Every structure is written in structure tokens, then in C-alpha cells.
């Protein structure tokens, strides 16, 4: 089979799929609905915070203060006004202390502002005011630190650094935290060979693992991702002699009483997609294959120099690829809108689980549609049966299982009921996404309905997902290939 023939067919089929009204309309509906929910969401309270760290060290026989200002994700904030004050807190009016020395600067593109403090002015207290925003000035810190203490530390370690390890929201998952390291070496040098260590804290388990190195600093500030760690961790910054110069303990998962808006957006958008993606596959398979097959449009093409197998597979995979592109586009646009509105994005794990979770039902439904197209003799019955399948598997599945549970005497919303519902999902390709979502979210969805949150208790394990996914993709596809040869 010449490659040009295969390319000719695939190019034509892909072009048809690209301009398929059903794919375009459903993608637009998903994006519009996703955009609507995103427009109602507000960023979490922590998102408004601006933070800073600073370092003091000796430079050219004077003192220099380096201030680093960043947002909740640890991104440097340029053009922020920083005011350095040397205060005399021993004056008679401590409410409005007198200023010994005052200087103002703006952060550069790296979020850093520098101040020189003459040695003779390094008395009293150091105070920094950081103002974010131009119209509404928001003073976020007026923390004062005695110069005498600062000088002791500088004489001992070469520099004084406030907040060397800060918790920041993970840019790829707003429900998780990463760490931002800020450090300055002696005389303002780069903190080379300073290493970051982390260890998992297993609560209630004496088998707490040891520290592992996350990496070394190669700049004054640097973000280290903690996506391989779940729950509480210890993080340490160590100098080249392995002395700890800073440490912090915290929970990598953000414990919030309010649901994370990113998760709300994802749940809503993926919920729409679970309903509409199968419909998209059904309609595009009907328009781009079923109708042509039943109306004998394909016959003339079969008479041309191409094999039936290549022609059919070309139509099949052009629909698969186009549907997956529509899914990527829907998620991508939603993610972009989410970023513009909230400054956060869907986690990479959500993207992967979405693509895997949707690929299986797309292939399964498409194969079933292609099988029906080869068995049925009228386009009306093909469309009617397809829609009934969508209604049963996509809309009324839970209702059917609930009725079944009544029949079996299983009380509604009991553990047995959820057991039945979740196990039934293995027999419904359209619910494969739900299974993957439960697995990747580590049972959050199950816990939300008030039952134990371990997916494995309900048979949702990686091997079972693999078997179900393989079964729903391979069996209908192979059956379709068999029918293609058999039915004429």
C-alpha cells in the first residue's frame, strides 16, 4: 500500500472530521459552560498575599540589604516599592518611632531591591515596608529587627537571612505547596553549594523516612517542587559544610475549609465532558462513517486503489484523533481561562488522567458505533440505538444501578450501595473516566460522599483499571475488525 494513498485518505478524513459540525458545536458548548463556571469562581484567600524575604551582609565596609518580593506562587514581583527604615525604638514615643535613616527603592525584574546602610547608621532597628499595588498602598510588613542581633549573625555566618525557606502554592496544583528558597552568601555572594533536603513525616508511623536531597541552589532564590511528597514534610537548607541554616515543617496539602476553585472548575468541566464527549463521538461516527456506510457512499471508494481496512481505519482514527484534539482544546481553553481568572492551572496529573480517562470511552463508543454501522441497515435505527446507548450508559446509569440495588435489597447510600455503583462502573465504558478520577484523586470523590476514601476497597486499583481500559478498547475494536471482514 503506497504511503501516499494512506495519507490521501487520512488527510481527507481528518479534514472532514476537523469541519464536523458535531465536534465543533460540542467543543464550543464545553468551553462556554466551562468558561461560565470559571467566571463565577474567586481565587482562594491566600492568593492575595504578597511576601518577602531579605538578607543583610557586609559590602564595601557598609551593610547592604537585599529584599526579595514574591507572590503566593513564589514568582518574583517587579516594580514593588520597598522602604527601608532604621528606627530608634528607644525614643520616648514608641508609637511613632523616630527614623535614623530612611531610603526607598523599587524591586527590579527579579523582584529584588537593594539598599546600602552606612555602618554608622546600623543602630537601632531595621524595618522594611513593602507596598504592593500602585493605587491602594498595602503595607504588608513593618517588622523591626535590632541591628545588634543582625550584626552578631553576620559576624558569625557572613550574612543574615530572614525567611530562607518559604511555603508557596504549587503553580501546577493550587491545592498543594512547594518551597521557595532564598539565601545570600557572605558579602552578598551567590549561595552556591547550599543544598535543600526534605523528608516525609509519617504521622502515627515510626518509620519516618530520612532526608533526601532535592537539589542545590544556583541563584539567590529558587523554587523546589514537592509533588513527590504527600502530607507533612520537613524541609532544610544546608550550607556547604552540611550545617542547617534554615528549616521548616509543613503539610504539602493545603488544608482549607473552602473547596479549591481549581478543583471546582475541573470537577464541573470534566462532568460536562463525561456527558458530552460520548455524544460527540456518537454524532461524529454517525456523520463521518455510519451514514456513509449504510447509504453505500463507501462503495465507490472501495473500488479505488485502497483496501477496505485502510479506508475504515482511516475514518476510525481520524475521529479518535479529532475527538482527543477536541478534548485537549476544551481542557486547554478552560485551563487558560482558569489561569487568567485565578492565576492557577490544572495539575499535570489531572491532564494525564483526563486524557487516559477519556481515551478509553472514546475508543469503546467509536468501536460500538462502527460495529452497529456494519450491522444495521438504516441510518434512523443507527442513530436511535446510539442515542439510547448514550442515555443508558451516560445519563441513567446511576439511576439504573439504584433501581437494581432496590431489587437486591441494598439500602441506598450504604457502603454496599456504593460498592455496587462503583463496581458497575467497570461495566460501563462511559464511567471509565470516573474510575480513573477516583484513582488519581486518591479517593477524594468517594470521601466526599461520606464513605471510606480508599479506592482499592472498591476495586479501583491500577491493575483493574488497566484490565478494564484494555478490555473496553481492544474487545470492541477487534470485534469491529472481525465484522468488517465478515459482514457484507
Amino acid at each position, binding site marked *: 500500500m503506497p504511503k501516499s*494513498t494512506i495519507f490521501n485518505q487520512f488527510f481527507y478524513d481528518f479534514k472532514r472530521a476537523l469541519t464536523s459540525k458535531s465536534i465543533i458545536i460540542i467543543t464550543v458548548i464545553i468551553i462556554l459552560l466551562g468558561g461560565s463556571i470559571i467566571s463565577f469562581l474567586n481565587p482562594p484567600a491566600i492568593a492575595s498575599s504578597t511576601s518577602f524575604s531579605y538578607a543583610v551582609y557586609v559590602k564595601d565596609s557598609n551593610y547592604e540589604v537585599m529584599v526579595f518580593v514574591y507572590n503566593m506562587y513564589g514568582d518574583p514581583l517587579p516594580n514593588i516599592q520597598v522602604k527601608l527604615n532604621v528606627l530608634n525604638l528607644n525614643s520616648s514615643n514608641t508609637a511613632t518611632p523616630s527614623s535614623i535613616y530612611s531610603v526607598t527603592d523599587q524591586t527590579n525584574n527579579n523582584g529584588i531591591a537593594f539598599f546600602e546602610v552606612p555602618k554608622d547608621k546600623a543602630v537601632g532597628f531595621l524595618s522594611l515596608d513593602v507596598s504592593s499595588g500602585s493605587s491602594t498602598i498595602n503595607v504588608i510588613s513593618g517588622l523591626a529587627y535590632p541591628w545588634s542581633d543582625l550584626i552578631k549573625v553576620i559576624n558569625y555566618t557572613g550574612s543574615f537571612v530572614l525567611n530562607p525557606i518559604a511555603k508557596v502554592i504549587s503553580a501546577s496544583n493550587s491545592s498543594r505547596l512547594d518551597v521557595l528558597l532564598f539565601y545570600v552568601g557572605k558579602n552578598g555572594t551567590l549561595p552556591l553549594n547550599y543544598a535543600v533536603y526534605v523528608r516525609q513525616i509519617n504521622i502515627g508511623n515510626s518509620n519516618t523516612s530520612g532526608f533526601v536531597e532535592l537539589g542545590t541552589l544556583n541563584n539567590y532564590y529558587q523554587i523546589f517542587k514537592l509533588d513527590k511528597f504527600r502530607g507533612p514534610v520537613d524541609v532544610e537548607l544546608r550550607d556547604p559544610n552540611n550545617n542547617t541554616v534554615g528549616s521548616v515543617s509543613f503539610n504539602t496539602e493545603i488544608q482549607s475549609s473552602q473547596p479549591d476553585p481549581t478543583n471546582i472548575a475541573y470537577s464541573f468541566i470534566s462532568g460536562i465532558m463525561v456527558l458530552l464527549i460520548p455524544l460527540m463521538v456518537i454524532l461524529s461516527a454517525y456523520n463521518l462513517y455510519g451514514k456513509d456506510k449504510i447509504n453505500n457512499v463507501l462503495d*465507490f471508494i472501495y473500488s479505488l*486503489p*485502497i*483496501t477496505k481496512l485502510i479506508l475504515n481505519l482511516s475514518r476510525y482514527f481520524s475521529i479518535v484523533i479529532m475527538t482527543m484534539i477536541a478534548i485537549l482544546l476544551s481542557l486547554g481553553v478552560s485551563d487558560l481561562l482558569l489561569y487568567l481568572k485565578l492565576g492557577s492551572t490544572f495539575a499535570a496529573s489531572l491532564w494525564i488522567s483526563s486524557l487516559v480517562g477519556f481515551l478509553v470511552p472514546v475508543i469503546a463508543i467509536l468501536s460500538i458505533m462502527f460495529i452497529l454501522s456494519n450491522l444495521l441497515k438504516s441510518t434512523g435505527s443507527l442513530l436511535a440505538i446510539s442515542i439510547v446507548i448514550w442515555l443508558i450508559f451516560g445519563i441513567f446509569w446511576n439511576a439504573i444501578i439504584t433501581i437494581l440495588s432496590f431489587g437486591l435489597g441494598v439500602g441506598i447510600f450504604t457502603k454496599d450501595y456504593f460498592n455496587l455503583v462503583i463496581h458497575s462502573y467497570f461495566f460501563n465504558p462511559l464511567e471509565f473516566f470516573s474510575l480513573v478520577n477516583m484513582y488519581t484523586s486518591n479517593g477524594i470523590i468517594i470521601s466526599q460522599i461520606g464513605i471510606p476514601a480508599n479506592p482499592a476497597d472498591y476495586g479501583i486499583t491500577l491493575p483493574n483499571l488497566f484490565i478494564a481500559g484494555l478490555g473496553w478498547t481492544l474487545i470492541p475494536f477487534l470485534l469491529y475488525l472481525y465484522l468488517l471482514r465478515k459482514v457484507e
Partner: protein
Amino acid sequence: MLEIKGITKIYGGKVIGVKDVSFDVRNGEIVGFVGLNGAGKTTTIKISCGVLLPNEGTVLIDGHDIVKDKIEASKRVGWLPEIPIFEPNAKALSLLKYFAGFHGITGLEAEKRSSELLREVGLEGMADRKIRTFSQGMRKRFALAAAMLADPNNYLFDEVLNGLDPAGMHFFRSLAIDFKKKGKSILFSSHILSEVENLADRIVIIHKGKIIKIMNASELQGLGSKTLKITIRNLDGKVYDILKSYGEVSVAGNVVTVRNFNGEPSAVNSELAKQGYLIESFNYEKTGLEDYFLSLVGEKNA
């Protein structure tokens, strides 16, 4: 050259489409393929162009097996279906360019070739029209253009004259003769037997899925009889003398019948007129392939 060798097609494991059908169509030859509805003509043709797979047997197109060597065989055969069905919303030129891609004709070459063919089959100016707006005849012309894309050596015309106006019938008849002159092989299925009789070099008769007769040119020539029936107002005995050299003459009232007529009807008409006979009606009947075919399939008296 088209060689059909012992093909059998059984639908759904029960219904016999064709059984052990064998014949060939040589280069520079038109073979008429006749049979009743459901006799197996379309099944044979669909197998021959690779649309259907046979249960048994092979079809060779210029020596290439349509099943085992589908691509090479398909390049060498053009199919004109009885009812051409194309994607209704496709535009004529773009669909033709897509078909051209299968023959390795792409880009500007495909555009040029497709436009030429649309003009050649009488669809000039229809390039941007959607197929669904085409009449039956136009769809057949479009199918012809698609079949001619690679200028194949073999053509399969399946009831192509059905539903065509006289101009359309003339177009496809002339085309078949033109293809023949160019040395191409044409399998021409039709139930308009007089058309096939006038066009074909050989006739293959299929009935209930089996070939029951293959007739060559000389057999076709001697097939059936011609009858001249003339009503003459001033009929007299001299008419018999004039007409007896043309065949077996019989007279009933003022109607003269010449059976097994051999001659030119127009010559008879002129001669009688010259002799002063007043001719009220003049009928020339040719009973040939149709009668033979009906008798062959045992349905003549049905």
C-alpha cells in the same frame, strides 16, 4: 483484460449471489452482460471492482488479482455503478481531486486532471456544485469522470443506461464504442437488450447466479428474425412478386406480412411507392436477443 474465474458469492451464508461464474472481457471488446433483476450482474461487477469479496474464485484485471493485489488491480479498472452514491455535501471538483489522490495524482495535477474530466463528461461549470444537487444522469457522468481518472484499461458499466435521457444514452453508448476503439475492455451490463445487442461483441447471459450462455458475434448476427408488416390500400397480386425476394410473404386482407425479412425496410418502402401503392402503415419488427433471452430463461410464456 478482465478475467473472471469461477467466482461464487454467498450472502449471509445462505443466499447465493453468484455461483461459479467465469468469463472474460478481452482488450478492444465490449461484452454485454444480461440477466433478469437479481440474476447476479451487479454482484459480479462489484466483485470485479473489489467492492465485494468473493467466497470463491478470482478476478484478474490485466493479470492482477482484485483480492490479493487490490491496489494494482484497482488502478486498472473503472466502475460505473447503476446508482452512483457519493458524499452528498461534497463539491464535485474537490471530491474528484480526493479520488485522484488514490491514483497518486495530487496538487495542481489533480486539479487540472479533474477539471479536464469534468469538462469531458459534460459537467463543465459544475466544479463547485455539491453532489446532492446533481441529477441521476449527472451523477453517472461524475462517476464516469471518477472512473476515468487513471485512464484505466478496463471498464465495468453496470446498467449505466438506466434512467438516462436519449442524449445521455447516446453519450454513454458512444463512449463505450470509443473506449473499444482505444483497445480497452468493457463489461456492459444492461437489461435494455436491444442496446446490448447493437453494442456488444459478445453477450454473457446470467440467470439465478449462473452463466447460462455466452454468445459470440456470429451467433448474435444470426439471432432471431425480422418481420415487415405493410398495410396497402390498393393491394394487388403484383405486390407478392415485388416482395417475395425479401422473405416469406403472406397476405391477409390488405395487410402484407414478410417474415424472415432480409433487406432494408426503407428500400421496400421506396419501391412500393414508386409502383404507385398507397401505404397506410409500415411496421418493421425485429425479434432477436430479447426473445432468445426469454426463451433461454424459460420465461417467455410466463
